């Protein structure tokens, strides 16, 4: 059913992505591709994989941005994937019932056996989360690694999405954003986690943590503290011996 769950899911599994610590290595995207090409939504088809114009289905795409100018400008690495929205239009526009939002944990999934490949869901998503598989003829998307997080055949520590398990900078966090006492909810509260494109009012579950305020540089900090600089600093140091 493409109606949203009658009662909004209490449990809201999702990701918290720290834009301050993300180093832009694309490991999350690669491990996602590796796991999911054999997982729930398999295969993640590649076209022309060894040719000049390789392209294929990925659930995670890492952009790099420059924001602002001059001393206050930032370079930000920015992973983009499905945000498992609370009111996802991709689900309600689906004519077949292939797209659905799970009542038990809020994960948005596609039933590949029901999808007719009309692509309307991808038009309804402002986040570019859904990618059409030309070869299989159905829409594909992030499953939040539903086949890992509940998988009792793998060690408990590995029951997190593939992107989270592989991140070398610990910039990706997984948990229940519906529980205000969960680690991820606390992280969001502490760091001012925010929604992407809130103007659409799809209420994304995933949150992004903004780059932290700059630490003042050492000379600027010293100056602010009223300490002498340059030659005076040297004289001061010589006389203080």
């Amino acid at each position, binding site marked *: 059913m493409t109606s949203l769950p009658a009662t909004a899911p209490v449990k809201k599994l999702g990701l918290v992505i720290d834009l301050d610590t993300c180093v832009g290595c694309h490991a999350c995207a690669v491990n996602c591709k590796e796991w999911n090409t054999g997982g729930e939504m398999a295969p993640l088809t590649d076209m022309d994989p060894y040719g000049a114009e390789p392209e294929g289905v990925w659930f995670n795409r890492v952009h790099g941005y*420059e*924001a602002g100018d001059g001393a206050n400008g930032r370079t930000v690495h920015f992973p983009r994937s499905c945000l498992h929205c609370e009111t996802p239009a991709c689900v309600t526009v689906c*004519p077949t*019932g292939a797209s659905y939002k799970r009542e038990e944990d809020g994960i948005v999934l596609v039933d590949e056996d029901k999808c*007719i490949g*009309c*692509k309307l869901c*991808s038009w309804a998503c*402002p986040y570019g989360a859904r990618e059409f598989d030309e070869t299989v003829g159905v829409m594909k998307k992030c499953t939040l690694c539903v086949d890992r997080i509940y998988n009792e055949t793998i060690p408990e520590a590995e029951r997190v999405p593939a992107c989270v398990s592989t991140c070398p900078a610990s910039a990706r966090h997984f948990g229940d954003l519906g529980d205000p006492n969960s680690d991820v909810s606390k992280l969001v509260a502490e760091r001012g986690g925010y929604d992407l494109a809130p*103007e659409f009012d799809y209420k994304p579950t995933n949150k992004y943590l903004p780059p932290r305020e700059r630490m003042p540089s050492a000379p600027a900090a010293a100056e602010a503290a009223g300490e002498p600089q340059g030659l005076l600093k040297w004289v001061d140091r010589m006389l203080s011996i």
Partner: protein
Amino acid sequence: MNPAPSVIFFTTLSGLGYGLAFWLAIARAFGAVPADTPWFGAISLGAALALLSAGLLSSTAHLGHPERAWRAFSQWRTSWLSREGVAAVVTFVPLGLLWLAWMLGATGGIWALVALVGAALALITVYCTGMIYQSLKPIQAWATGWTTPIYLLFALMTGAHAVAALAAWFGYGASWQAGAALILTVVLAISKFMYWRSVDTATPFSTPESATGLGRFGRVRQLEAPHVTENYITREMGFKVARKHAAKLRMIVYAIGFGIPALVAMLMLISGPSALLATIGILAAMVGAIAERWLFFAEAKHAVMNFYGER
């Protein structure tokens, strides 16, 4: 948005079919065409049914799994695409019955009622088509109150020119046909002008700054794209048309799509129905409708392109 030919032909041809069916049904319901005209009924309403069937079939051409299209009738509670599918199938019932009755020369009040139901359902189906596009918030140029009225006006306008041409061929031409065609062409031209003016001057609903949340630092530019070649998203949503080509096509819509049909309808109002003039009118109107529908897709920017730093 990528202007896929299957969707452009689907929406323009089925729009023409529903518009033609609407006018024929209305004419039958109110006795504006004689009932004992089996050949005219068979061919004109048959053409309408063939056009909307062809349109519906061509819409399945862009599906990844056309054989599963029947599933699309199930989610009418939330999905305008599903509602359109249901409405399209239901509309076949009164229009198909009317077609048979017309061919068999059946008369009587019940057929006027069937005709009215068919006319209403034809408009409801086109309304659903328009709402599919209008309900998509990420495409700002579509999510306006203009989208659905313009879909309806195109169906009614092309349908009126088509009924004028078919009636003239069979010798049932009348001034109400040219009059309806003229009024609708003028109203549509004004609506389209106002629509284009409103989308050209609209402030963006979503920007690279709001999409990424990095606007707090200032203007956002994409430094590195996630992929070096195209992908589904950039091909489907990132289609861009050169400004000068768009301007030229808009002129084609105004001149061929609205100018010629309006002129032809006016001439027929003055000098009486003419099969030749009316045929020119409907052909020009369809060229305009296809150009307009191509622009409707090609000029529309999708919000996901904000993540690729496009404004």
